[in-house]
């Protein structure tokens, strides 16, 4: 009897130990990547807002028909194959087999058509593309067509655009939500699933690996290629204070900071457990935006004066400081990309104050103070306006620099009131380079008057060239048109680019596989140890 009891006890103990071990192994096998993004995820509809944090959320849970690879080429993503008819008017797209939504239902052509329609109604480039679209018939569950009214090279460029607003595919029931309403169903077909119940705004957003995601066979390249989720869970932690985020990274409480401020990089560089990651080599571009409806910036001569008065070096040095993280670049469409060119830029952006003064005189500048909005709460912008003020004053402008927080700038820039009555003349911002790689996607070049972005430039020549670019299907001609846009822009400046700057991320050394792309994405990343 005693032996039987002992055997039972031993069996129970062994079983319990086995289960405990299995549980531990299972717990250990769960890898969680803890990330501090550049901002808190507030809005989760990537079509409704162009906020970058929402775009990045989109890349976590949604997939795209096409994507931009590391060489800035558009590659099929959800699409298995596509062809263009001989008259260049009909695209036929066939989806890859086995693509599933997070609820287990198959991705269909109907879903994709509905998604394109919603995105095309909201996004500026989407609207441009849709202006060529006559029809989008569904052929079968996995095939649909885009029938054009005129040939355009814009279809693949727009469907594969890398940055806001990205044409993410959503289930038809979700995509049928009005583009002016936010979606409330977050079912995607991307490599991660959004855990809505674990989303604590101001604290964290949680994503778990989608086990049934079918990645492409190719290795990842930019935002294209195989999206293989190598960690089980990704947590976007909100750490508002940069110093605290750096401390948490050093202590191993988090794995990656997407955008540590430049002044903290030396601390991170000196820590043996941390590496800096150049995840977005295209970087960003500063831009000085004119209000072309307000005197004196309604006069092109006055705007051109600033093209001569400014130089990029002063702005970049004052803000970024470390030459490793900035580049003087005269190309409007970003240095190192297919459409980059210096055409028309001779003598510009070199602080030629004599020429600037001559242009001011020629333009009849009457000494009206320029209301320059100065954003004071975003470190990467704070020092720019004082530099602009100094250079403008050297050229002969009077400048009324008004300091305010960025959200006030954002609200005020939408106002068309006269500058002295709550309006504005100019402000400085920054674009992710991926958003400004061609004349159509560069929002500040939109010169369609009232329909243009704040600043409201109005120029038929620029608009015609942008239309030509959209219609053109030959990449060689694209370059020529982009150069023509750049030349016209020197005659009718809509904004002034103030140089490129780069933002490395900071990672623990046990995390590898960061994808080099214009958006920070988390497939292909693996983590060893704790």
């Amino acid at each position, binding site marked *: 009897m005693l032996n039987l009891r002992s055997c039972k006890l031993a069996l129970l103990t062994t079983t319990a130990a086995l289960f405990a071990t299995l549980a531990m192994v299972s717990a250990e096998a769960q890898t969680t990547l803890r990330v501090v993004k550049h901002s808190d995820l507030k809005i989760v509809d990537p079509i409704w807002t162009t906020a970058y944090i929402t775009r990045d959320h989109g890349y976590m849970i949604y997939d795209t028909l096409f994507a931009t690879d590391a060489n800035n080429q558009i590659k099929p993503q959800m699409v298995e194959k596509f062809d263009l008819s001989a008259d260049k008017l009909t695209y036929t797209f066939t989806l890859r087999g086995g693509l599933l939504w997070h609820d287990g239902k198959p991705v269909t052509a109907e879903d994709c058509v509905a998604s394109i329609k919603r995105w095309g109604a909201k996004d500026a480039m989407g609207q441009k593309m849709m202006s060529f679209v006559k029809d989008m018939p569904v052929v079968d569950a996995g095939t649909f067509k885009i029938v054009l009214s005129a040939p355009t090279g814009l279809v693949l460029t727009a469907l594969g655009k890398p940055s*806001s607003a990205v044409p993410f595919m959503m289930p038809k029931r979700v995509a049928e939500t009005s583009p002016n309403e936010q979606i409330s169903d977050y079912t995607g077909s991307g490599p991660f699933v959004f855990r809505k119940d674990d989303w604590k705004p101001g604290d964290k957003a949680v994503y778990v690996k989608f086990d049934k995601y079918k990645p492409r066979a190719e290795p990842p390249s930019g935002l294209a290629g195989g999206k293989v989720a190598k960690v089980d869970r990704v947590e976007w932690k909100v750490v508002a204070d940069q110093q*605290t985020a750096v401390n948490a990274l050093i202590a191993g409480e988090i794995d990656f900071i997407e955008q540590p401020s430049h002044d903290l990089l030396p601390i991170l560089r000196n820590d043996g457990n941390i590496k800096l990651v150049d995840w977005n080599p295209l970087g960003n571009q500063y831009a000085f935006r004119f209000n072309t409806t307000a005197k004196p910036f309604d006069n092109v001569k006055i705007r051109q004066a600033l093209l001569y008065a400014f130089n990029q070096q002063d702005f970049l040095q004052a803000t970024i400081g470390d030459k490793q993280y900035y580049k003087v670049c005269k190309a409007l469409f970003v240095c190192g990309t297919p459409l980059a060119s210096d055409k028309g830029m001779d003598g510009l952006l070199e602080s030629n104050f004599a020429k600037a003064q001559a242009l001011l005189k020629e333009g009849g500048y009457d000494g009206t103070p320029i209301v320059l909005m100065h954003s004071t709460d975003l470190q990467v912008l704070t020092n720019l306006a004082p530099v602009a003020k100094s250079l403008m004053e050297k050229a002969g402008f009077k400048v009324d620099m008004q300091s305010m927080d960025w959200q006030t700038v*954002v*609200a005020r820039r939408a106002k068309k009131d006269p500058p002295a009555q709550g309006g504005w003349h100019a402000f400085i911002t920054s674009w992710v380079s991926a958003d400004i790689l061609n004349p159509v996607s560069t929002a500040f070049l939109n010169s369609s008057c009232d329909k243009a972005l704040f600043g409201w430039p109005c120029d038929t020549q620029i608009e015609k060239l942008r239309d030509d670019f959209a219609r053109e299907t030959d990449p060689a001609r694209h370059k020529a048109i982009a150069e023509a846009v750049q030349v016209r822009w020197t005659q009718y400046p809509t904004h002034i680019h103030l140089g490129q700057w780069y933002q490395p991320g900071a990672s623990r050394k046990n995390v590898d596989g960061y994808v080099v792309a214009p958006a920070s994405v988390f497939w292909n990343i693996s983590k060893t140890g704790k």
Partner: protein
Amino acid sequence: MLAYIGRRLLATLPVMAVVAVFVFSMLRLTPGDPASIIAGAAATSQDIVEIRQKLGLDRPIVSQFFIWLGHVLSGDFGESFFYKKQVAELIADRVGPTLSLATLTMALSIVISVPLGVVAAYRQGTWLDRIVMGFSVLGFSVPVFVIGYALIYVFSIRLNWLPVQGYQPLSEGFGGFVQRLILPSLALSVIYIALIARITRTSVLEVLGEDYIRTARAKGLTNRVVLMRHALRNAAVPIVTVIGLGIALLIGGVVVTESVFSIPGLGRLTVDAVLARDYPTVQAVILLFSLAYVLINLLVDVAYPLLDPRIRY
């Protein structure tokens, strides 16, 4: 007493009404437009107009106010412009961390500062008194965030004893809960320890010269009994007043502390909501803070007769 409490509670209504009007007006007068913020960098003027209509911000301000007031009176604080969540739900998520931080901070402050103040008074003029008063000056002078960073550097980075940041709810384990609250509570309590210790010392010093203390000593009571039962109790009214004020002032302190230690509490919610011009959230949080302030004051007033029977309402 009950009648007094009833009268005071009724008096909170006009106070809250004034706060409601003030907060609503101030927010609308502040530059900034939530619609522009929501729309993002590449939005057109038309996009912004559509969002403004959607949020009801195109209506006259008076109309917006009465719609909001009507909802508040029916217990509905509305929906956050940004998170598309009910404001009440957002606040409920954030109350726990702030309440935990505030409770531990005040507990630490009281437990440390009152004995320090009593000892400093009892040993007036000695090195002990000077150390306590020196610490008190230091506590007043050093900003919370500096203390926070210093504590993080020593205890988290150098010694690796405690986490740098974050919050863990009590339901997920007591150890983790306390571990994550020690440093922020300590950082935040320094100023209150300084304040309460100083007031306690002054108050006890005043009482120690009274006749009844001499009588107590003449009866042969020990120093401990004289100090704790006779001196401290009679000195309690100003101390309780300062503690009450301290709790109310914590509202400001938690904003900084929650940022430095990345605690998702009401302070951070307030800052984020103000920066984003999330009107419904800011209005609800400030109303809540105001209500808390009024109630804390009421509790302090109610405590007076319990501590000093000579006080009657």
